[in-house]
């Protein structure tokens, strides 16, 4: 969680310094859900984090440098500078990234789970979705199909009270998000999303169920989005009192309290903080030294075959003319 928070803070700084454009969707206050749950997965399992689950990516082993590379659009990034934000698809780590249209990711993760099912592999998939996203068409179809086919999948509904600039209570009539699960006929459970241990425990139970053929579980994380939707959103619409209330439930502070209670010393904890900071400092330096992609790479990797790479625009060749075929060969004959 410290790494997640630290990394996101660096990203903000990099944004202010002009090293990256676009948006950062912070997970401040929600780190426990992503981190605790990801720990419940094993090797071979797949995880599909939403944009606010940086912690899950890191737990699965994504290198912080790869995160930085993608945000700062390095040519060395996993996506070769072609995509942005938290869209990381890394088969070796069992990571399936989202695309921006909400809800679609669950549908695709179903296919991964289907492959496990078909191959009789006892692997499990886990994914996350905001309560806002749960209103989308794709989300619904994804839930319904996973339920119907009994796929080994665990879905977190991150009830963080907001969807972009609108309170989710304004965008739905749902009282208890746990009810959302009933529609699909699968087990569901509510969890304190700011308690990393509770999250892990619930995730573990659901993962075990999926692994042993029990199908999908829906888990509702009760949590709060402590910052605006993205950098450009100053969150002016949020009551300070509400934030104050949730600040008292900060997942890192709570985790520290638990650890202290279990005997961890202040020095040990400070040590961890320093290690994280050093790792991040080094990663930032390293990545910023790396080059941006080459313009011409914009043409590649649209299809499997390089023959189908996009052509160099005819206006950019040394002599304008269409791919070897000069239209004026028969000029005015």
């Amino acid at each position, binding site marked *: 969680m410290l790494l997640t928070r630290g990394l996101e803070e660096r990203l903000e700084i990099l944004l202010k310094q002009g090293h990256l454009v676009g948006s950062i969707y912070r997970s401040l206050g929600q780190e426990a859900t992503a981190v605790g749950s990801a720990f419940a997965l094993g090797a071979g399992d797949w995880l599909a984090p939403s944009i606010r689950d940086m912690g899950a990516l890191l737990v699965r082993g994504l290198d912080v440098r790869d995160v930085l590379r993608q945000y700062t659009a390095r040519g060395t990034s996993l996506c070769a500078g072609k995509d942005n934000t938290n869209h990381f698809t890394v088969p070796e780590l069992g990571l*399936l990234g989202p*695309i921006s*249209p909400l809800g679609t990711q*669950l*549908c695709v993760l179903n*296919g991964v789970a289907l*492959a*496990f099912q078909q191959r009789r592999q006892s692997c499990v998939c886990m994914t996350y979705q905001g309560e806002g996203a749960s209103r989308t068409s794709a989300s619904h179809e994804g839930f319904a199909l996973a339920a119907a086919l009994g796929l080994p999948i665990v879905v977190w509904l991150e009830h963080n009270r907001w969807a972009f600039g609108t309170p989710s209570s304004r965008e739905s009539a749902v009282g208890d998000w746990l009810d959302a699960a009933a529609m699909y006929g699968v087990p569901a459970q509510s969890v304190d999303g700011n308690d990393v241990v509770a999250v892990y425990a619930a995730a573990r139970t659901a993962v075990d169920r999926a692994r042993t053929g029990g199908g999908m579980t829906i888990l509702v994380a009760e949590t709060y989005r402590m910052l605006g939707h993205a950098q450009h959103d100053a969150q002016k619409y949020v009551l300070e009192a509400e934030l104050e209330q949730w600040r008292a439930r900060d997942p890192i502070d709570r985790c520290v309290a638990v650890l202290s209670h279990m005997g961890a010393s202040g020095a040990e904890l400070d040590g961890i903080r320093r290690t994280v900071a050093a790792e991040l400092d080094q990663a930032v330096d390293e990545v910023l030294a790396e080059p941006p992609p080459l313009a011409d790479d914009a043409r590649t990797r649209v299809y499997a075959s390089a023959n189908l790479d996009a052509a160099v625009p005819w206006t950019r060749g040394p002599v304008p003319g269409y791919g070897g075929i000069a239209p004026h060969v028969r000029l005015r004959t």
Partner: protein
Amino acid sequence: MSELRETTYLEAIRDAMAEEMRRDDRVFILGEDIGVYGGAFKITEGFLQEFGADRVIDTPISEAAIVGAAIGAAHMGLRPIAEMQFIDFIAPAFDMIVNFAAKSRYRTGIGAGLVIRGPCGGGSRSGPFHSQNVESYFVNVAGLKMVAPATARDAKGLLTAAIRDPDPVLYFEHKYLYRRVKEMLPIEEEIVVPLGVARTHRAGSDLTIVTYGGMLYKTAEAAELIAGEDGAEVEVIDLRSLRPLDTDAIVASVRKTGRLLIVHEASEFGGFAGEITAQVSEHAFEWLDAPIRRVAALNTPVPYAAALEDYYLPQVDDIAAAARWLLAY
């Protein structure tokens, strides 16, 4: 040489899937009513029995989820075939196709080798929602491939190629041809028609007609009519693949004949003929002895009543009139 059997266009589709499923256990099919029921057009009849419920998957009515699952399975190395009960119902899956499937390799390096297939086209009095040709929805979307077979051999060969292809392929099968088009095809012998290669259906030197899918037969009929009555020889090119497009074949033919007519069953405005016109304009302008013209459906939805649908659709007479106009130009 292997034994031949009369095979309908529909059977060719079935055979392609069944044979690939036998050859490669990564191939599976998912869609609505394809298992227990055997498919709305009975294309997958017997599949559930032969291949089991793991590989013949009845899904909820949820085209986006079907395509989504196919993408995820493709990421895992499987080779999914997603059936749309009618190709019209590809619309709810539009987002999944253009944003997830098409952009996957570009963004992540991981491909989505899947096939989405379904019955398209008019002529069977099925009204505005069971008769559409949907290629234009996708024609500007890089990352997709699209094919539209007209013959039984191509139906089989293109589907086999599509299943094996590492990229997402939209496969438009014309339902009017399902049982009307037949051909002698070798039994149990693999037919592979490469994506992106057009076929010269009929050679000629006076006029090129480029077409695909359901319109091949009306075009061929018009070409014969003109050969018989006018003594002119029309070259008919059946595109088979819309993307990748065999521009070379089109350009070569136009450079030979100097005249081009494009025929398609979708509405004219914004239809696929536009792209062909642009390509030929770029590659063969100096060879053109007449304007590039097109014959396509009305710029309206597909109407239900027979008189209306017949008026809506391009007919043999339209193609012949256009061809004669061009020949006389």
